[in-house]
């Protein structure tokens, strides 16, 4: 299914190979209304595997709401969401996350009174101590899982150059570091599709480039990413395709270069 099917006319993906790829995620005619406010209206799009798909648009375009609907944080008012061939529309957020559909948030959402390492461990699945029964059976029952996951988390901390902060409370980190913690935390779930909601907003410029590098490296390792972002130069560098939303609907898609050629998109968002 092409991005942004009826009623909005959508341009074909520019600069993409014609070979058919099976989408990892298909959103079909998804809407989300709040008491009559149409935050997301009849949005359809595919997310192809192994790519970073950009989702851009002016403030209030419905990007974050759409991301929340995809992740199950908000239920869809109508439409269907298919993830890896399965209809996940009715699944709550935690079940979608367990299937590998994991999101981060527009505002920092670290677990402030947990250390950085604990933030990562809290997201890790498959720990025998992560149930009341397992907890009551004592540390010997779950220590092997915990040790394995601590090692896995420390590898991530090394990779994101955050090892020195592992015992710091997450609330004490800078804005950029909190973003990195959120990404690492999501990676602990070994996601198949990572939904990143403005990971570069409010972040020091030096970390913006770092986050982009990490995203590209993760993509090269096969992770699929749907990225909502306002840093257009980063979107241009990392994303293909890029989907543009305005007033709750998709108004176009393609490469950034191709989108810059479309007058209505420039008028709606890409001013300048």
């Amino acid at each position, binding site marked *: 299914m092409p991005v942004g099917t009826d009623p909005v006319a959508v341009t074909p993906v520019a600069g993409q190979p014609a070979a058919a790829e099976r989408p990892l995620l298909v959103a079909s005619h998804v809407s989300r209304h709040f008491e009559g406010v149409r935050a997301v209206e009849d949005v359809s799009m595919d997310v192809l595997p192994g790519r970073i798909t950009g989702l851009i648009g002016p403030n209030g375009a419905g990007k974050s709401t759409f991301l929340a609907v995809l992740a199950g944080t908000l239920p869809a008012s109508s439409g269907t969401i298919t993830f890896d061939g399965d209809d996940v529309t009715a699944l709550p957020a935690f079940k979608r996350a367990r299937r590998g559909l994991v999101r981060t948030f527009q505002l920092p959402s670290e677990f402030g009174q947990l250390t950085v390492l604990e933030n990562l461990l809290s997201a890790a699945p498959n720990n025998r101590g*992560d149930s009341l029964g397992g907890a009551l059976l004592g540390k010997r029952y779950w220590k092997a899982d915990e040790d394995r996951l601590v090692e896995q988390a420390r590898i991530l901390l090394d990779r994101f150059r955050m090892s020195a902060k592992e015992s710091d409370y997450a609330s004490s980190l800078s804005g950029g570091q909190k973003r990195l913690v959120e990404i690492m935390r999501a990676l602990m779930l070994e996601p198949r599709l990572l939904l990143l909601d403005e990971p570069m907003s409010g972040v020091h410029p030096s970390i913006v480039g770092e986050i982009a590098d990490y995203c590209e490296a993760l993509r090269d390792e096969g992770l699929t990413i749907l990225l909502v972002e306002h840093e257009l130069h980063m979107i241009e560098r990392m994303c293909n395709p890029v989907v543009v939303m305005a007033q709750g609907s998709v108004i176009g898609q393609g490469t950034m270069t191709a989108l810059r050629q479309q007058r209505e998109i420039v008028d709606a968002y890409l001013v300048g």
Partner: protein
Amino acid sequence: MTYYLTTVLVYAAVDILACLAISLQFGVSGIVNFSFIIFQAAGAYTAAVLSLPRDTANGGFQTYILGLNLSFPLPWIAATLVGALLAPPIGLVVLRRLRSDYQAIAMLVLSVIASLVVTNTPAFLGGAAGLSLVPQPLSDKFNPYSDGYLWAYTAGALVLAVVVFFIAQRIINSPYGRSLRALRENEVAAKALGKNAVALKMTVFVVGGAIAGLSGAILVGFITTWAPSTWLYPETLILFAAVIVGGRGNNFGAVLGALLVPVGFEEATRYLPPFGPPGLIPALEWVCIGGLILGFLWFRPRGVLPERRRVFAARPQPVVAGEPNAGRD
């Protein structure tokens, strides 16, 4: 003197149990259970009506259901179970859909409703007069007024408090406890990371309910009476004050808070010389409890013994061949 000391110590054990339960629910998991006292009351009433003979046995001066005259420890086990079983219906109504501030209001309302229902249905659990002459555990085999019995009862209560303390330690130091803390910090984010928030909250709600039920059984077995006046909703606030003062999310803090506020503070006011009109000192106690909560939330919100930071053992450093200390330590 023995009676005074054992009474203080049994109350200490009961308050420690209650504070541990509230610390698990509120301190660790962020559930503001303002209906906590009804779980303790449910345990106490259960233990009472299962220990008491039929209500016709004592000349019918009090009315209540059941009256099964069961032997110890069955009433205490049943009290623990009832405390646990009361949690799912309340939890399903309150925890599933409401935000935490609305949860607190709903819990408070439930507490008031429960008190009014029991007070106004005398045939159910004795009404406003409550239940009295509740048989003490094993009182058919031992003299419940002897010093030995009082000390044995006290020791039993304290042992149970210690056992529950270790259970609570296992919970908060486990990955499950970490998930509860993550939920407390940011429920939406925790759900997006695969945490089943309802199941997590429900399990800790059940555990807290069971501990509360047990604490009620211990208390009613010692004081032998139970009435709505002993479990009015402000009692929950005293326990919350204790956990806030001691340190929420830290079991040692919960114990310290229990010893400082419901036990220490209330005992200390007992020795004040009488002044002012009757009822002034108890009223001032409430003012002080409110002041304690506000003062700690303002100046030391994490309590005397804050939740401790979890630091994991450093990973072993790689041994570099040829270094003078290679392979040592």
